[in-house]
């Protein structure tokens, strides 16, 4: 990897986020450099997805304190599309259906905008032939049937199909930083293995990846450089891959016992 990329990072400092006035994150600190893989684990309701939405710029997730920086620039005020065009991507746990819009048309539009961040509305998209060729290549790599591209975005997709569609988007958009929110949930063991391999292949050594997961299967081919545990809206512990293994096999009781204050906040969030 080129040296300069190593210095590019997604840096989250003292991030506080509220949803509809209710505080969820209470000061999260996290820095992901390009080429690194981070795992983010934690019980349901600890704020993992909230972190993802806040970074991607969902208008309902209000940053009340702290900063999100992308390659040195504060992006707190950026629109979601600007964040995407500058290299941020989130794979949704529950992607939205857009009936009547074909995957291929949606992807062509999105890919054009992300590759040409200065593109104005109405300007030409990537030429159809060129786009189709690339899409076909990526779909073959992911062992997806071309028929998939003609279906409407997430409309009537099975859980597994939705997750694969998210991975296809990741492969086409090639962001600098990707947050994968439970891309393994709802998949059977084989599908998780395939997803894990695909993500490793797409990510290579230039993408910074944050994998939000409950399991260690998705990490099989994506060995985390760091594993973070989130509890009650804070990251309470950071270690290597051995932490992911521990949490997967033994759950969060030890963490709750070690961080009673965060565990109490967790109850607050849940109630």
């Amino acid at each position: 990897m080129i040296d300069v990329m190593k210095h590019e990072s997604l840096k989250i400092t003292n991030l506080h986020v509220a949803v509809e006035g209710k505080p969820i994150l209470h000061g999260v600190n996290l820095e992901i450099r390009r080429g690194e893989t981070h795992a983010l684990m934690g019980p349901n309701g600890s704020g993992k997805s909230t972190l993802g939405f806040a970074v991607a710029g969902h208008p309902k997730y209000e940053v009340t304190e702290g900063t999100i920086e992308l390659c040195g620039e504060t992006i707190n005020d950026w629109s979601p599309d600007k964040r995407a065009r500058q290299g941020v991507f989130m794979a949704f746990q529950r992607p939205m259906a857009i009936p009547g819009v074909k995957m291929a048309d949606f992807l062509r539009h999105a890919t054009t905008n992300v590759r040409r961040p200065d593109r104005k509305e109405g300007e030409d998209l990537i030429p159809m032939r060129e786009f189709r060729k690339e899409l076909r290549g990526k779909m073959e790599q992911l062992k997806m049937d071309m028929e998939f591209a003609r279906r409407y975005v997430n409309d009537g997709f099975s859980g597994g199909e939705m997750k694969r569609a998210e991975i296809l988007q990741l492969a086409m958009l090639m962001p600098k930083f990707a947050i994968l929110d439970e891309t393994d949930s709802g998949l059977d063991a084989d599908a998780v293995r395939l997803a894990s391999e695909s993500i490793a292949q797409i990510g290579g050594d230039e993408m910074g990846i944050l994998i939000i997961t409950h399991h260690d299967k998705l990490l099989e081919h994506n060995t985390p450089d760091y594993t973070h545990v989130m509890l009650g809206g804070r990251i309470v512990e950071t270690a290597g891959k051995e932490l992911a293994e521990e949490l997967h096999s033994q759950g969060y009781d030890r963490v709750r016992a070690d961080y009673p204050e965060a565990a109490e906040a967790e109850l607050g969030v849940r109630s």
Partner: protein
Amino acid sequence: MATDSIATIGEINKYDFRTETKAVFKARKGIDAEIVRQISDMKDEPEWMLKFRLRSLEIFESKPMPRWGGAIDLDFQNIYYYLKPTDGQGRTWDEVPEEIKETFDRLGIPQAEKKYLAGVKAQFESEVVYGSLQEDLGKKGVIFTDTDTAVREHPELLREYFAKIISPDDNKFAALNSAVWSGGSFIYVPKGVKIEFPLQAYFRINAENMGQFERTLIIVDEGAEVHYVEGCTAPMYTTESLHSAVVEIIVKKHARCRYTTIQNWANNIYNLVTKRAMAYEGALMEWIDGNLGSKLTMKYPAVYMMEPGARGEILSIAFSSAGQHQDAGAKVVHCAPDTSSRIVSKSISKNGGRSSYRGLCKVMKGATNSRSSVVCDALILDSESRSDTYPYIEVDEADVSIGHEASVSRIGEEQMFYLTSRGLTEPEASTMIVNGFIEPLIKELPMEYAVEMNRLIELQMEGSVG
């Protein structure tokens, strides 16, 4: 919107230009018996037609304004009811006065004619100024002319059906049209003749305070097929204009007729139209009704299924933006056994626009084994806009199957976020959602019209943002 290019602004104004013309004849403003006589006189009509007009005028004057639908704030005495733009009709575009020819050039009519049309009629104000029909169709006995010419040249055929499907008593605006009608298309497709390419009529209102009252009659004989398309535009004025047409269609045994409308009137035009078809044994009538323009549209294309096996399909798309009310819908009337109908309506409301679906499904006693399905979906883009559904179902027969589904949705914040998080701007994302919403209807259109419809909807989306 700020990021929009000049080119797009030009596009929005594509239809909004005025043509300087010297009218051959312009009746004074207002409506009364004198004006009606003058129109009939100008057209050198037979006595029966003059009597029909005068009787219709009385009906118009006696009927109250409709108390339902949209608000009609129109001064009938401030409208020009007849404006004759040229002397006679051109058979080639070169025979059409230069400034009017240029108008249709800018609207792309001659180009479309060369590419994919079997025949064209172009109406400017009150009269058809240009007409063509492929030679081989004429030889097969197909008639495609303006209705005034049909009164002179095909009197028997015309009189057999004229005002038989929509009588002047039907409603106030049908009566008005019957009194002052001018122009419109008359089509006869002989037995077994299938016209491969569409016949198209284009209606242009150019003058201010203009009333356009075309009258169309289409007769599709046994086993014949035709696809008729109409487009309509006008420049924008600050005062109101009126378009009030009557369209009557007869689809005989095992014949098929498809009637496509792409209505893009300027937002100062009241569009109050009566359209009705009678379908006979095993026949199919399809209305494809796209309403994008006008200040207020009240239009409910109808299919009466008169004999066993008749079918009716109505696909309706309405888009209303600021200052617009589309009160559109459909009527299906099952008068015979084994008839079937389908209504699919999609409406989009944006920037304070209002869309209403108003539909009737009626099954008469004895129309056993009839089937009808109605699906109407509304999409509302913001909190200022409005959508209403008025479905009327009257069933006098037990042995039938009627299905009705309606949905109203708002573009969700989650859908928008999903698309914008992939790099689409908000306007791009909402346009994409709208295009997806109407996609099931668009894909039933012939390619050229699907492209046109998509383009118009994109213009509506863009135009109303900034």
